[in-house]
């Protein structure tokens, strides 16, 4: 008996609106090699699957051999772990229900697990990051697309009866509030995502004559607004404060029902730093159920933004039972 039959590597794939990134990752979370291509270059799903599987195989062959790969995990927006499918993705080129896990497994001859980005991010945090050792926690993703989350219950991700759980971005934080792209009004995303932040700034700029660096006509991105906060711009600071404060209030209600050991913040918007996070922490403290107030840790992810997505996807790959066409 020997250990050569145990596979120590998986492939982690992260599909986002910009790029599809795929990497070979070992059991310790070391990213051995990583590549990517623009997702929208393949508006036909069959061509996308072909391109992805060919590239993965070539990458594996050039780096130790395809036979060393145990399984594949893929993170995709709007994907459902329970069905293995992408379901009505708003921002991807392919519409409707796409049975991605089955399609890719047929091409690659290996087990494939599919999950949405919130679920994958939380799994990555549990296995490699700030949630290691924790059993009940919430991971909040503040990315470009919107605000998502996934919470763990007694060591397992809570997916819900349909696999839709965690949609904190579409909870109502202001009655009859702003129109959200999902069709409802007053969603958290409409105030605290990148989109919401931009609208905060626009409304403040329109409501007053106060001079501001943001009036220069440039795009109101989180990065630009953060820069202006650093330079003391009052409107930029208030736009961030509003986003952070509403987020803190919403997370306080979330923590009140979940009672997590920690709430972990991830995603590109956390680069805004104290301008967003200080008001968030303050409102959280004021609004959360008193019995747990001093007992919930508010943390920022320790994982590198660049690695996080494929790391989480690689963790997903270990969960699915091994399957091989070649046995």
């Amino acid at each position, binding site marked *: 008996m020997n250990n050569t039959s145990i596979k120590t590597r998986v492939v982690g794939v992260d599909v986002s609106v910009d790029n599809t990134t795929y990497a070979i990752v070992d059991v310790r979370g070391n990213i051995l090699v990583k590549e990517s291509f623009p997702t929208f270059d393949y508006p036909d799903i069959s061509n996308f699957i072909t391109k992805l599987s060919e590239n993965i195989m070539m990458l594996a062959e050039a780096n130790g051999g395809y036979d060393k790969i145990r399984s594949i995990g893929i993170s995709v927006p709007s994907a459902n772990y329970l069905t293995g499918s992408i379901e009505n993705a708003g921002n991807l080129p392919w519409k409707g229900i796409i049975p991605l896990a089955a399609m890719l497994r047929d091409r690659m001859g290996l087990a494939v697990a599919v999950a949405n980005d919130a679920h994958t991010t939380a799994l990555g945090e549990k296995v490699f990051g700030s949630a290691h050792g924790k059993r009940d926690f919430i991971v909040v993703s503040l990315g470009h697309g919107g605000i998502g989350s996934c919470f763990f219950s007694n060591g397992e991700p809570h997916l819900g009866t349909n696999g839709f759980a965690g*949609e904190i971005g579409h909870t109502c934080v202001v009655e009859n509030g702003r129109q959200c792209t999902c069709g409802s009004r007053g969603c958290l995303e409409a105030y605290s995502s990148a989109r919401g932040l931009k609208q905060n700034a626009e409304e403040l700029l329109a409501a007053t004559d106060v001079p501001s660096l943001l009036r220069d006509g440039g795009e109101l991105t989180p990065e630009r607004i953060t820069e202006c906060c650093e330079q003391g711009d009052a409107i930029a600071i208030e736009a961030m404060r509003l986003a952070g404060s509403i987020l803190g209030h919403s997370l306080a209600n979330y923590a009140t029902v979940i009672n997590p050991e920690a709430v972990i913040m991830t995603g590109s918007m956390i680069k805004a730093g104290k301008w967003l996070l200080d008001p968030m922490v303050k409102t959280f403290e004021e609004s959360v159920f008193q019995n747990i107030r001093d007992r919930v840790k508010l943390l920022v992810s320790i994982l590198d933004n660049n690695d996080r997505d494929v790391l989480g996807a690689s963790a997903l790959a270990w969960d699915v039972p091994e399957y091989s066409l070649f046995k």
Partner: protein
Amino acid sequence: MKLERTKTRVVGVDISGERTTFAVVDIRGNIIAEDYISTYDYADVNEFVAALAEKIVMLVEANGGYETIRSVGVSAPSASFKLGSIVNAANLPWKGVIPLAAMLRDRLGLAVAVANDAHISALGEKTYGCAHGMKDFIVINIGVGLGSCFFSDGHEHLGDEGYAGEIGHTCVVPVDGRLCGCGKHGCLEAYTAAKGIVKTAEQLMAESDAPSLMRQMEKLSPRTIKECCDQGDEMAIEVYRRVGYMLGIGLANYASVVNPEAIVFTGGISKAGKWLFDPTRQAFEDNVFRNMQGKVKMLVSEFNDRERDVLGASALAWVVPEYSLFK
């Protein structure tokens, strides 16, 4: 070694501010016999435990014998399953942390499990009620307070310290909200539990001169307000419409993160019927994450008063490993 007889019965205990009920219950949820003592007769918790234990033994001896009982489950306000204790109960005679499970086990020589009423309600519904066969669902308890417990993939979600489910203390009115018994302002409980409903009625009566049957009521309560609704009283109907609206939004946000198959209502106020549930359902559908619209069932517990208190506690008794002083 010899063939043993299976123990088919447990004792379910429900401790509330008014009375402490205890019953012998079998595997199928049949209540064989029950009795009660008055909680407030015992200012000293040691005396309470002694009296409770004595009366349980008497009930059991008169109904099959002590050897037929496997274990004991206890429902108490502010109890933590993980700690086996009551923690700072507002409505009981005894303060601080009370290690009730250990105390009762020492007296009875049987395994004892303790949990709070929200957790017990959910367990009761899963084992013997509406939620049998479901894996992801929420049980909402509306009465004096507003509590909940949800199940994740077949297991109750207790949270890091067992405090999960406090939906009543989520903040739904951030500015100028009503003062809640927990010390915060704007809690959902302050608008939707018994006192909150009466307060809304009082506000409506003060706001206008319109006639209402409620003005002639000696004592306003959720039940009497409902009776006015049944008689077509417009102001009373508006009371429940407002309560339902707020409850619906609070539950929509809860469902958006938990994605339950169903929400089960129990507690006194769940008897308010369509006056409460129609507006609740409307506000829920308007605000829940779009993929769940029309999918979440809303059910009312079918247990009668006698069953409700002790069935869940009896279900809890089966969870704790058997223990006997006499082995």
